[in-house]
């Protein structure tokens, strides 16, 4: 059970906040405790990943073989707990959530984190489904918690309906896979399905199964919720949806895509989705006024770029998807840090409201600029490295035209990212805007983000090595899993 400690820890944290939600309200106590506990969770997760020596193919199966702990899942859990800690660090003031609901907010956030951690380790169709639903339901409620904003409820309902549809479609896909593969274990499916990818039922089963994770990733055609949910939810919740839940979705999509054994038909289908997603996202983002809506459309576009990595279905593709997950986490979080700090009383931030940010808060303006350039994929920011990796993987797989189209998309996206930079650096506010007071911890956080973004762009070697070893461990693990422990104990 020692492999399950990080999850147990987060579970206990959730339980604690459940108890606190019954006690009298005390937002300061809740924040302090959440920050402390999430830091502890991060430490435990990283500690376990470092001491466990997960390099190579070492893996551990739990719960009747439905739950797999390996290097791949552990590093993703580290990313998830990092994101969790970062999002909580934004919650010092939480004007977007009513004060009496703060402990429920932390409770739901912990449960969502727990669910995402379970998700990246799930290797059975049922555990995948349960973990996904657990995370989705926590997030539905979190979106709904936004106070003082009428559109919050609309956003929550939209999010819920599209999410429920996606899950239903995904369940149908799971049923098809289960029916043809005669097993719910991914390892069994792995053995059975690649040879049968030409059968329509298998192909459709895959495509439908992906939909639940397309929803999480906000990939076309399951992207409609993103702009409303980002806009309608409290900033911290949007930040969580934009960063942590995307990371987990990328992890699972990688695992599922590995099941298909590199089918070209599946790849052709995914290419269409990736192109549609990035084009729609980028074109729609150009006309946005609300910064969070803009970030939502940019997320849709980025879902398309990530799909390129996944559909390349080679080792470098895996490496680049992992790296992309990390870089998105950092860059999107940097954007939301600025949103949270510049927002007045938790209201949404219009792009025009960033006017004169370079004087009001130079450090935040710099963070925002780097994050925007990074999202646009311009060197020397981390986003460039991730795009370089993704595109190299795609060219290796023979998709030069796809890379060219994706690069044109990058140029389109540059337009709206530059508009944000222009607002922060060039436009002067009409009325003398209040200076943004930035506390010392936030300054340190911003500095750390700036450094990470620059190091990831200029000297990404260590990050790439880590991502590389993870991608290899995934391939080995899924390759080895065929038969052995899985099949002996729980074969159909």
């Amino acid at each position, binding site marked *: 059970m020692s492999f399950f400690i990080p999850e147990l820890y987060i579970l206990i944290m959730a339980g604690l906040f459940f108890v606190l939600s019954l006690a009298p309200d005390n937002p300061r106590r809740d924040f302090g405790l959440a920050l402390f506990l999430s830091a502890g969770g991060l430490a435990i997760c990283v500690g376990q990943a470092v001491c466990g020596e997960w390099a190579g193919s070492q893996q551990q199966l739990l719960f009747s073989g439905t739950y797999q702990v390996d290097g791949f899942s552990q590093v993703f859990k580290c990313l998830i707990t990092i994101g969790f800690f970062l999002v909580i660090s934004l919650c010092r003031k939480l004007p977007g959530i009513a004060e009496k609901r703060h402990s429920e907010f932390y409770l739901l956030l912990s449960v969502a984190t727990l669910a995402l951690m379970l998700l990246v380790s799930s290797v059975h169709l049922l555990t995948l489904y349960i973990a996904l639903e657990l995370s989705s339901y926590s997030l539905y409620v979190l979106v709904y918690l936004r106070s003082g904003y009428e559109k919050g409820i609309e956003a929550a309902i939209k999010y819920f309906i599209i999410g429920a549809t996606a899950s239903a479609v995904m369940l149908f896909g799971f049923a098809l896979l289960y029916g043809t593969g005669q097993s719910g274990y991914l390892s069994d499916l792995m053995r059975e399905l690649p040879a049968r990818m030409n059968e329509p039922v298998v192909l459709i089963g895959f495509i439908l199964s992906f939909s639940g994770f397309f929803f999480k990733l906000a990939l076309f055609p399951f992207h409609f919720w993103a702009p409303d949910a980002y806009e309608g939810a409290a900033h911290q919740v949007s930040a969580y949806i934009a960063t942590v839940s995307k990371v987990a979705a990328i992890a699972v999509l990688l695992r599922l895509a590995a099941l298909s054994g590199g089918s070209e038909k599946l790849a052709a289908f995914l290419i269409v989705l990736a192109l549609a997603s990035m084009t729609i996202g980028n074109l729609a983002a150009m006309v946005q006024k609300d910064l969070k809506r803009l970030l939502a459309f940019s997320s849709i576009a980025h879902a398309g770029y990530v799909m390129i990595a996944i559909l390349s279905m080679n080792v470098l593709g895996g490496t680049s998807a992992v790296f992309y997950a990390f870089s998105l986490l950092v860059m999107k979080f940097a954007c939301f840090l600025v949103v949270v700090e510049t927002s007045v009383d938790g209201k949404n931030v219009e792009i025009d409201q960033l006017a004169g940010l370079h004087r009001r808060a130079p450090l935040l303006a710099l963070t925002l600029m780097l994050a925007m350039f990074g999202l646009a994929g311009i060197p020397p920011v981390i986003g460039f490295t991730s795009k370089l990796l993704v*595109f190299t993987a795609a060219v290796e797989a023979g998709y030069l035209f796809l890379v*060219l189209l994706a690069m044109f998309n990058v*140029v389109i996206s*540059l337009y709206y990212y530059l508009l944000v930079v*222009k607002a922060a*650096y*060039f436009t002067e506010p009409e009325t003398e805007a209040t200076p943004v007071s930035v506390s010392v911890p936030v300054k340190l956080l911003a500095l750390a983000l700036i450094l990470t973004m620059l190091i990831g762009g200029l000297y*990404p070697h260590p990050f*790439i090595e880590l991502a*590389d070893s993870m991608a290899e461990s995934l391939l080995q693990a899924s390759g080895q899993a065929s038969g052995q422990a899985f099949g002996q104990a729980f074969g159909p």
Partner: protein
Amino acid sequence: MMPLHAAQFPFLSLILVCCAGGLLLVLVLPARQTSAIKWASAASGALTLLVSLYLFVAYDQTRGGFQFVEQLEWIPGLGISYLNGVDGFSAPLLLLTGIVYFTGVLTMWELQTRVKEFFALFILLVTGVFGMFMALDLFFIFIWYDVSLLPMYLLIIVWGSTRREYAAMKLMLYLLFGSALILPGLIYLVVQSGLGTFSLPILTSAAEFSPFQQKLAFLLFYVGFGILAGVWPFHTWSPVGHVAAPTAVSMLHAGVLMKIGAFGILRVGIFLCPVGWQYWAPLMGFLATVGILYGALAGLRQTDLKYVIGYSSVSHMGIVGLGLATVSVDGLNGAVFQMFAHGVMTALFFSAVGFIYDRTHTRAIADLGGLAHHMPVASAYFVIAALTGIGIPCLASFWAELLVFIAAFRVYPVYGAVAVSALVVSALFMLRVVQHTLFGPVNEKFAHLADVPFGLGIPRMLLAAVIVIFGLMPFLMYETIQTTAVALINGLP
């Protein structure tokens, strides 16, 4: 193909360190200390100028190849290394960057608004340009290329003039569209080579690309870098950008940045895809000739001084393109020489116009007139730049243009004839500008303005001196370029 000679001392990195040191100093100094910031930038500029001059002089023409090579593993997993070197093509361009950097800082000595940020971005831009000219690793070439473009957006939008928002956005989108073609091209070649390295020397010598791969990749590079080089019909960002940018940025922009584009075609396109180069050369020659003629004709009709120079840049960069298109030693020599000469010339041009604009606050040719009467020195710089632009003997661009035209007449007689006749047009528009702004009836409104003080004249004197020195002694430049040009042409399949 090209031998690599390791450096005894990392002079190339020293240039980057000088830039980075200047940048750090500017960032550390408080924003109020504007004169300290200017001195720090000038010191950094002077140091890089000295080092690049040393590199230019110390480049050993008998040994040839890449010299002062320094290498450091960077991302071994992808075959990326920090690899720098100088050859006969990049040595003059590094010197050019040093000159424009130093004189650019001096030209902006009177800047008052947001001084600290201006010089920080300016130095960052220059760092990218230096990096681009010295990098021999495709990854770094691309990184430096973009590092040199990004600051342009802020520099134009914050410190620029006429329609700056439009110009800055147009410029960025055009140039980044160029990089959208370059990056897939680079990745394509690296992956197709199967060598797992981004190192340009290894790829040029060991990789065997099929003719189809070379044609495809060269086209991507030609259009991608060509946008930055102002190749017609992708040039429209350039006059608009020149006009909107502040003086020193125009100097860098026309003087050095457009050379990055031409240099990219040369370094990446021609070195990696010689077959593609020969295949597309007629098209390059055609577009270049149209550019030369179009730039000259468009310049004739402009009413804004900076637009005139902007279009003359399009025309002059066409000469570079024509030289590259001839696939010959003379053509390459002329093209690289022209990059250098045109860089110094436009820097002088914008510097002179910048001074006139700072005093009169107008650049409309119709409003000026008779400036030579009360600002004789300022006018003299302008006249020198104009004469260089026309290609008067004894000034640097004469030799460059001569070489290109000799080669062009040999390979494409028609294009050569058209290009030479376009020179007449460009002489016409240069002289027209000189006549209407410097001579003719005096505009009394500006009669009280003082001439260039000695201190502010230093950058212009320096630029004029460089033009004259290389005009009188072209062999100083020619022989260095020749070293690499001959090796390149001899190595052609």
